[in-house]
Structure formats: C-alpha cells, structure tokens
C-alpha cells in the first residue's frame, strides 16, 4: 500500500506541493539545522534529507530523517545507490519504516570521483530503477529482492529523480519512463534555472505520458552569489545555469547578489506554477538553508493546509 504521507495526500488532492531539502552536517552538530527545520514546520509538505550529497560525507540521511520526524516534520529519506549494496539498502529501508519514515527517494548518486573521498570504492550494486522496483515489491508484496517474505507490511511513498537539462532528452526520458514503470510514485527534478528549457522538457514528458502518470515536482534553488552560481555551473553535477542568470547576478554589487538570487528563485517558482503538469516545487538548499523559510513565505505558499 502506498503510504498516505502528507506529501502523498497533497499530490493526490491536486494541491501544489512544496518540498525542500536539508543537507545533514559534516559532523554531529545538528542544532543549527534543526533550528531552521523548526521554522519550516507546517510550511512545507516534506523535507528531503540528502544522502552524502555530491559524494561528500555527511551525517546519515536515515538518522537525520528521524530527527526531523521527532520535530514534527515529514522527511523524504534519500538513498543513493553509490554507497550501499542491496543488503544495506534493504536493511536501511526496513529501518526507516520501523522509525516511521515513509517517503523514500531513490537515486544513483554522484560518483565518488566527484566527492571528498575519491579513493573510495563505488558500490552501484543496483541502479535507481532497480531499487525503485525493489522498494515497490517490499511494499506491495512484502518480499525482499531474493523473494523472501518479511514480517509486517511497510508502507512507502516512492520517489525518483530526473534531470530535465540533458542534451539527449529522448534517451533520458526512457530512463525516466523506466523509473516510473518500476514504481516511482513521484519525481523530483534537478533545480530549474532555465524556465524555457524546462518547459520544452515538460512538453516532452507529457507527450511520453510521464507527467500524467506520476506527479513531477520541479526543483528550484536560490543562488547566494555570482561566485556560487559560477561554482555550481562549473563544478557540480546537474546544475544548468543559463548565461542570463549570471548576467543578472553580475549586474548587482556583491552585497545585493543574495537578494537578487532569491528574487530569481521566486520568479522561477511563479513561472513553474504556470507550466502544465508541474505538481509542486522542491526547493534545494545549496548551502542556503537559512533562506528556505523566507522563500516559502514570499512565494505565497502559506498557510499550507492538507
């Protein structure tokens, strides 16, 4: 059975979903981030907790998901295929269910070569489509990948990711279709900075029958500065930032770039709400967590009722 999480309910009622992302700390000081989490309570449908993002070590996604749950926030527990084999993935998933965590996002993860332990052994035992299929089977049939029955029947709301800004969109749509065929209940995308490009992709996704079957939540992010925008564009996987965004940031003195970044983000949220098939936005943190409550408020997403 699909878990009737707040995120699932919002989407199934056709309301515009709002999710955001928190990146657990490199260390055990969770205080600052949890204080931001407190400000997000009741303001978002769910909070993604990423799993060693960009292949950099962070406090466990599973543990931080539970910390959010304890504070009354609904987590989306992210699982990257990079670091865990099928034993660890299944074991963590059952653990998540036992802790009351029901939204799960399945993704490949950046390659270790891109992160802070490039000497580490990659895992990639399963790919994200295979894992989505496995989570669905655990949920719907109560069996592990090996066919063995598990005790109890965990409920999950299963997510996958998509990058709308790939050169070969047809090829990447096949992959997305596979994720959906495998059992993805919702899709979150990489951050959108190019509305026109995203619109083209959305049209293709609709034509492929993807958007009808599975709600697509478009990613957004508030750029802090020109320097950060340039860094993300050059160095971080999945950030497609068009020249005109850089020009806009460049036109402002450094002290005003952060508020310009926030402006751009709010404009993009507005534009995304007008695009057919977009069922929500997912606000990525990109080191700008403290801005999340303000973005949500100024985007007019409050009050949030489910």
């Amino acid at each position, binding site marked *: 059975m699909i878990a009737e999480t707040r995120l699932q309910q919002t989407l199934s009622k056709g309301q515009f979903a709002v999710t955001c992302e928190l990146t657990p700390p490199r260390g055990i000081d969770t205080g600052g981030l949890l204080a931001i989490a407190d400000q997000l309570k009741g303001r978002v449908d769910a909070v993604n907790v990423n799993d060693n993002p960009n292949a950099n070590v962070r406090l466990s996604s599973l543990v931080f998901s539970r910390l959010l749950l304890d504070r009354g926030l609904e987590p989306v527990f992210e699982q990257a295929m990079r670091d865990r084999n099928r034993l660890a993935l299944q074991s963590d998933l059952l653990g998540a269910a036992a802790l009351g965590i029901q939204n799960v996002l399945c993704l*490949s993860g950046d390659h270790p070569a*891109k992160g802070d332990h490039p000497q580490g052994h990659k895992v*990639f035992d399963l790919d994200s489509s*295979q894992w989505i299929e496995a989570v669905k089977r655990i949920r719907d049939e109560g069996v592990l990948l090996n066919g063995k029955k598990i005790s109890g029947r965990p409920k999950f709301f299963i997510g996958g990711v998509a990058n709308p800004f*790939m*050169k*070969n969109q047809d090829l990447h749509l*096949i992959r997305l279709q596979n994720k959906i*065929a495998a059992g993805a209940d919702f899709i979150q995308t990489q951050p959108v900075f190019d509305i026109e490009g995203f619109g083209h992709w959305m049209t293709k996704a609709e034509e492929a029958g993807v958007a009808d079957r599975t709600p697509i939540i478009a990613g957004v992010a508030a750029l802090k500065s020109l320097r950060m925008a340039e860094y993300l564009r050059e160095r971080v996987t999945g950030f497609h930032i068009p020249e005109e965004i850089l020009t806009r940031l460049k036109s402002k003195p450094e002290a005003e770039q952060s508020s310009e970044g926030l402006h751009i983000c709010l404009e993009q949220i507005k534009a995304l709400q007008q695009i057919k098939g977009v069922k929500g936005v997912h606000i990525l943190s990109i080191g700008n967590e403290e801005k999340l409550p303000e973005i949500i408020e100024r985007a007019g997403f409050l009050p949030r009722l489910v």
Partner: protein
Amino acid sequence: MIIAERKPVQELLAMVATFKNILMVGCKGCVTVCNAGGKKEVAILSAALRLARRNQGNPLTVDEMTLDRQCEPEFITWLEEPLNKNHYEAVISLACSVGPQYIAQTFTDLPVFPGLNTGFMGGTARHGIWEEYCAGCGHCGVHHFGGLCPVTRCAKNLSNGPCGGSEEGMCEVNKDQPCIWEKIYVRMQTLGTLDLLKTVRGAKDWSVSLSGGPRKIIREDLTV
C-alpha cells in the same frame, strides 16, 4: 586483451634497491601487443635500471628473458635453468599480475616484483591509446544494449539508462569520455531496437563476478 602499463622507474628502483643481480622477465602475450612488457620493453627498462644504478655507484646486473606466456605454468618452468645457473636474487615480471603470481607459486623462495600495473580488459583505440571494454562480470549481456557494455563502460554500472550527471554527452566522471549510454542509444536506434531499453532490467547477479570470490572455469571435457 589485458592492458597493462609500466610502473615508474623510480618505483622499480626502490623495489630492487637491496639486490645486485636480478632477472627481468617479459611476456609475449597481451602485454607485448599493448607495448608494456614485451621483449622490447624488457630491453629498454632493464637498460634504464642498469644505468640508474651505475650512476648511483651501485651497479645492478639485470639479465633479460621473455617467455611465450607467463599465464601458463609450462612456460614459467623455463625460468628454472637460468635461475639455477645465474643465482638471481630476484625477478621483475613484466606481465599482467598473473605472471608474478605464477612465478611466486613456482619458485617459492624467490622474491618477485611486478614491473607493470595491470589495467583492464580492452582494446587499442589507436596506436598508443587503449580503452576498457570488459569488466569480466561473468554473465555477458551486451546484446541487451545494442552490443555495448554499460556494466563496464558506464561509471555507475547503470542498466536502465544514463544518469543525470553527463554533460554534453560526456561522462560525469571524465569529461573526455563519451557517455556509453549515448552510444547505446544511437546503436539501438540504428538497429530499430530502442523499445528494448524501455523495459526495466532487473538487478544484476554479481555472484558470478569477482564479487563472488576468485573464479575458476572448469571444462570437464578438457580435464581428463
């Protein structure tokens, strides 16, 4: 073939620093074809070691020999005579790492050092450039992907399409490496078999790969 490359001379000099009289053994198999450990490379590398040690005022005798193959025990036994005759203190093997291991197993009290870093199974892209094509996963399925292997040639071993990390069709991990999924796509488009990509390929069985432990292939009909 197995593609290997020579270890740096400094590393080899450090390995044999305490010896005065060694044998360098090449291999006429794969490593000759990929210009890493054939007769010619043995000649060049042994000369480099001799020269370096002479310049240090600590001369090293490096005799040369190249076996037909170092991955066959029969050829390894050919070393017995020269080893006994010349009392070498150690051997540097210029083969893939099967070579030094076979020598170590055969001559139990003889120190043996690898002269090459064994890379991968692959082919010659063009003269001087070799590329990896096979990870020896133990269950070939390239026909599902237009004849190309994502298990080896996708950095994330993906079976159900490309990751979101490539840029302009190049791999997330190496910007000089085209994403294999682009090639799979073009090939399957040409073959008219793109629909095959639209079914989810289940979890791979890694137990038949190195993950299941060192492997052995036994042909009963040949073992009599």
